[in-house]
């Protein structure tokens, strides 16, 4: 009895960790999470502040006074989109050898994402594979 309750809980936990390590957040998801989890804080500290540089500045200025749940969300979201943006910026450098060898193409080619998504993870260098996952391009892959 005890065991049956424990196993799903553990699986759930592991699944959560796996997902967190494997994926970065889209901007759409990031802004949704912040507006949901920080709804009250926005109403209190940033009321009427438009989405854009001013809202970001308002968050920066009031971060310490915001609710723990909002602070936690903001930190997670910020770390995730920073990781994604960095991966998108650096993938050309990190993967250039793999891209050329395995896809016969260079950075920002339209077929690059299709090619990389079709590769086995172990075909690329681990760092390139992780960077590719971090870009979010594989999960938001376009289909014809």
């Amino acid at each position, binding site marked *: 009895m005890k065991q049956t309750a424990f196993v799903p809980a553990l699986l759930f936990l592991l699944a959560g960790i796996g997902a967190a390590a494997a994926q970065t957040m889209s901007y759409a*998801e990031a802004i949704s999470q912040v*507006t949901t989890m920080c709804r009250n804080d926005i109403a209190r500290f940033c009321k009427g502040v438009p989405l854009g540089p001013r809202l970001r500045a308002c968050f920066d200025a009031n971060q310490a006074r915001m609710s723990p749940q909002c602070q936690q969300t903001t930190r997670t979201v910020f770390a995730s989109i920073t990781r994604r943006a960095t991966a998108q910026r650096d*993938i050309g450098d990190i993967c250039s050898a793999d891209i050329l060898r395995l896809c016969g193409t*260079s950075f920002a080619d339209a077929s690059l994402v299709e090619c990389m998504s079709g590769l086995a993870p172990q075909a690329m260098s681990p760092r390139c594979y992780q960077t590719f996952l971090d870009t979010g391009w594989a999960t938001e892959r376009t289909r014809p």
Partner: protein
Amino acid sequence: MKPTMKLAHALAAAALIAATAATATLAQQGINASQMTNSLAAVSRSGKLSLTGAQLRQAVLDNIRNYPGAVPSHPLSFPELEGLTQIVVEVDFDFNSDVIKPSSYRTVGAIADALHHPLLLGYGFLVIGHTDAVGGRAYNVGLSQRRAEAIRAALIDPFGVNPAVLEAVGMGEEQLRDPKHPTAAINRRVQLVNVGKKFCFGRSGEQFVCP
């Protein structure tokens, strides 16, 4: 084939996004950055816009001066612009204001996700704002310009889109989508037009102005 296809894309995206206004979270999660990317990346069939943003803005003002009246008697048309790859999205603003409603934040985020995709990297985009026919025409040009600029500003910060690829244009009520119902919600919209490649990328992702 081209216009129908483009229209289908645009309408699909518009329908998808318009659904968010009525129904809450679930419909919003239907806003899909890859659908936007796909629609906007049909650029191989599209060209490069020779009109500048300033020329478009001037044409809007000329239309009001040349055809004065409470509502536009002469719809403004830019065949060259209409031939380009584009999507139409609904972004909600506070009444008479350029403040984007929080319910539309996700849509703006999804546009940013699409613009960060390698298929669209380096392409230039016009962010064109349209209002309905409530209010004066000149006023609406200003309002839609400020709204388009608000979207552009949010795409740049916090969403990290390269400012050099985005230009905002306000068309006011000069291009009503449903002229028979000039105050209908369908007239209030944002057009995102792919105006062609601006920057090219080297093997390591370094950016330069396309030759």
